[in-house]
C-alpha cells in the first residue's frame, strides 16, 4: 500500500530533469520572441481597427484574447500530447516504473513541467492584454476574468494532452485525437447555432473554448447561464482525466507489437505498383500509405450529417461548401508535414539519401504521392462548389455576390492546397517533431498569406485613414494580395526544401547548444 502512494519528493526530480532539458531547448527562448511578435501584431491590428481610445481598448482586448486563446489551446499539443507516448515509443516508460515511481509521479511530473513552461509564456503575454485597461473600455474585473478563463483553458489543454498521451502510443494518433477533442466542438458550434438558433448546454460543456469565447463575443450567441455549469463540468472532466491517467499509466507499459500480417496484392495491383516503381521509387513508397478514397467518402459523408443537422437547404449548402473549402487544406497540411517529419525522425530520409536517387526526385515523388492522395477530394470539392455557385446563379437570374465569392474560394482552394503541400514538407523537414511541423505549416501556409494583407491594411488605415463604402474595394485587393503571398510562400518553401534537403535531412536533433 505504501508503494502506491504519491511521493512528492520523487516527483520533483522528474520536474527538475525535464526543466533542465527545456532550458537547453531553443524553443523555450524563441517563444518569448513569438509572444512579443504576436502581442505587437495584436496592438497594430487594434490600432488599425479602431479610432477613439475606448473603442481601441475594447478591440485590443478582443484581439489579444483571441491570440492568447489560440496559444493556450495549442499548448497541450506542443507540451503534453506526446510527452508520455514518446516515452512509450522509445521504451523508457518501463524503465521509470522499475524505480519506486508510480503512475501519479510520472503523470503529475510531466504535467508540472508543462504547467511551468506554458504558464511562464502565458504570464509573459498577460501585459499585452492589460494594455487595454490603460486605453479604457475594459474594466480590471473583465481583465481578471479573462485571464482566469485563459489559464483555465491552458490547464484543460495540458490535462487533455496528458490524458490522450497516456492512452495512445503513436504520435500521429495522439496529435489527431488532441486536435479533434480540442477543436471539433468549436467547429460544431456554428452548425449547432444554425440548427437550433442557440447553443445547447451539452455542446457548451464539451467545448473547451466556451467560457473564454463567451467573454469575447459578449453573449450574443453563447448563453451566459451555461458558463457556471460548463466550468464545473470541465473541472470535473480535468480531474477525471488526470485521475484516470495516473491510475492507468502503469498498465500501458508493454513490449513492441509484432508486425501485422500484410495482405498479398492482386496481379493488377502488382502491375500498377511496378509501373509506379519504374517511374519514381519515392512515389511508390509514398503511394503505399495513401487512402484517397477514404478522404473522398469522408467528405461525401459529411453532406449526410449536415442534412440531418440543418433546417433549410441554403444552410446545408453554405455549411457544406465552407467545410469543403477547409477540409482539403487540412488533409494536405496533416499529410505533408507529418509524412516528412516522421520520415526524417525515423532516419528514413537519411537512408534514401545514401542511394543514387537525387534529392529533387525524392521531393518530386513525395509531391506526386500527395497530389494523388488529395486529387479525388479536391476535384470533388471543386465540383460541389461549382455546382452550388451555378445553382445560386440560376436562382438569382444574375451573378450574385455569393457566386462570385465561391468562384474566388475555388481559386483560393487550389492555390492554398499547393502552398500548404510545399510548406508542410518544408516544415516537416526542418521541425523537431511532427507536432511542431504541423503548427509551423499551419502558421506559414494558412495564416502567413494573410499577415501582409493585415499589415498593408493597417498602414493604409493609419496613414491615409480612407472612408471606403464599397466592400469590394477592400475584399478584392485583400484576396489578390493573399493569393500572391501564398504563391510566394510556396516558392520560398520549394526553394528552401530543394536547397537544404540533403543537409537538413541528415541533421540530428539531439539537444543543440543554445
Amino acid at each position: 500500500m505504501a508503494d502506491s502512494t504519491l511521493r512528492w519528493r520523487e516527483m520533483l526530480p522528474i520536474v527538475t530533469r525535464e526543466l533542465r532539458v527545456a532550458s537547453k531547448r531553443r524553443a523555450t527562448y524563441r517563444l518569448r520572441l513569438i509572444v512579443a511578435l504576436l502581442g505587437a501584431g495584436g496592438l497594430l491590428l487594434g490600432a488599425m481597427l479602431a479610432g477613439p481610445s475606448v473603442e481601441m481598448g475594447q478591440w485590443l482586448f478582443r484581439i489579444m484574447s483571441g491570440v492568447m486563446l489560440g496559444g493556450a489551446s495549442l499548448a497541450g499539443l506542443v507540451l503534453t500530447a506526446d510527452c508520455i507516448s514518446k516515452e512509450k515509443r522509445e521504451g523508457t516508460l518501463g524503465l521509470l516504473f522499475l524505480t519506486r515511481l508510480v503512475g501519479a509521479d510520472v503523470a503529475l511530473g510531466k504535467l508540472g513541467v508543462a504547467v511551468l513552461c506554458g504558464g511562464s509564456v502565458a504570464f509573459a503575454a498577460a501585459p499585452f492584454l492589460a494594455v487595454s485597461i490603460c486605453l479604457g473600455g475594459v474594466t480590471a474585473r473583465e481583465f481578471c476574468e479573462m485571464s482566469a478563463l485563459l489559464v483555465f483553458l491552458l490547464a484543460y489543454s495540458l490535462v487533455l494532452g496528458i490524458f490522450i498521451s497516456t492512452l495512445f502510443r503513436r504520435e500521429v494518433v495522439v496529435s489527431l485525437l488532441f486536435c479533434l477533442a480540442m477543436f471539433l466542438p468549436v467547429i460544431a458550434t456554428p452548425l449547432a447555432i444554425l440548427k437550433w438558433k442557440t447553443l445547447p448546454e451539452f455542446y457548451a460543456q464539451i467545448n473547451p473554448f466556451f467560457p473564454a469565447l463567451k467573454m469575447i463575443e459578449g453573449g450574443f450567441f453563447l448563453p451566459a447561464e451555461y458558463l457556471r455549469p460548463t466550468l464545473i463540468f470541465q473541472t470535473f472532466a480535468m480531474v477525471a482525466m488526470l485521475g484516470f491517467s495516473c491510475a492507468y499509466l502503469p498498465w500501458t507499459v508493454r513490449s513492441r507489437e509484432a508486425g501485422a500480417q500484410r495482405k498479398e496484392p492482386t496481379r493488377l495491383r502488382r502491375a500498377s505498383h511496378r509501373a509506379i516503381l519504374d517511374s519514381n521509387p519515392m512515389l511508390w513508397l509514398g503511394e503505399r500509405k495513401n487512402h484517397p478514397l477514404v478522404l473522398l467518402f469522408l467528405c461525401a459523408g459529411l453532406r449526410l450529417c449536415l442534412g440531418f443537422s440543418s433546417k433549410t437547404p441554403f444552410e446545408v449548402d453554405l455549411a457544406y461548401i465552407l467545410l469543403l473549402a477547409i477540409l482539403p487544406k487540412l488533409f494536405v497540411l496533416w499529410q505533408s508535414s507529418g509524412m516528412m517529419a516522421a520520415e526524417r525522425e525515423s532516419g528514413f530520409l537519411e537512408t534514401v539519401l545514401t542511394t543514387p536517387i537525387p534529392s529533387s526526385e525524392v521531393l518530386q515523388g513525395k509531391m506526386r504521392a500527395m497530389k494523388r492522395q488529395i486529387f479525388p477530394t479536391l476535384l470533388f470539392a471543386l465540383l460541389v462548389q461549382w455546382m452550388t455557385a451555378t445553382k445560386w446563379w440560376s436562382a438569382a437570374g444574375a451573378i450574385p455576390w455569393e457566386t462570385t465569392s465561391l468562384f474566388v474560394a475555388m481559386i483560393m482552394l487550389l492555390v492554398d492546397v499547393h502552398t500548404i503541400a510545399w510548406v508542410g514538407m518544408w516544415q516537416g523537414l526542418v521541425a523537431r517533431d511532427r507536432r511542431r511541423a504541423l503548427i509551423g505549416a499551419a502558421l506559414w501556409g494558412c495564416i502567413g498569406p494573410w499577415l501582409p494583407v493585415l499589415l498593408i491594411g493597417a498602414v493604409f488605415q493609419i496613414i491615409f485613414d480612407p472612408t471606403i463604402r464599397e466592400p469590394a474595394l477592400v475584399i478584392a485587393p485583400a484576396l489578390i494580395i493573399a493569393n500572391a503571398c501564398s504563391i510566394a510562400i510556396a516558392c520560398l518553401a520549394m526553394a528552401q526544401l530543394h536547397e537544404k534537403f540533403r543537409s537538413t535531412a541528415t541533421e540530428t536533433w539531439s539537444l543543440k547548444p543554445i
Partner: protein
Amino acid sequence: MIPRSKLIEKSLGCFRCGVASMIPLIGIVQALVALNRFGFVIVNTNERWNPARLRLYVGALLAFASLLGHALIAVFVYLKITRDIANG
C-alpha cells in the same frame, strides 16, 4: 544532371526577365518566364553552388512584385468600369 553552366545561364535569365517584368502589360509574360526559370533552377540545382543565386532570387521577387501590381491594377480598373456602367 543538368550542367552547372546551364543553371547559371537560367539564373541570369530569371533576373533579366524579372527586370523586364516591370514593363506594364508585356511584363506579365516576362514575369511568368522568370518564375518558370526560377522553378527550373531550384529543382535542378541539387545543392550545388550557384554563383548567380542572388540574381535568381531577385529576379523571382521582381516577377512577383510585377504580377501583384498588375493584378491589383486590373482589379481597380475592373471595379471602376463596372461602377461606371452601373451609374450609366
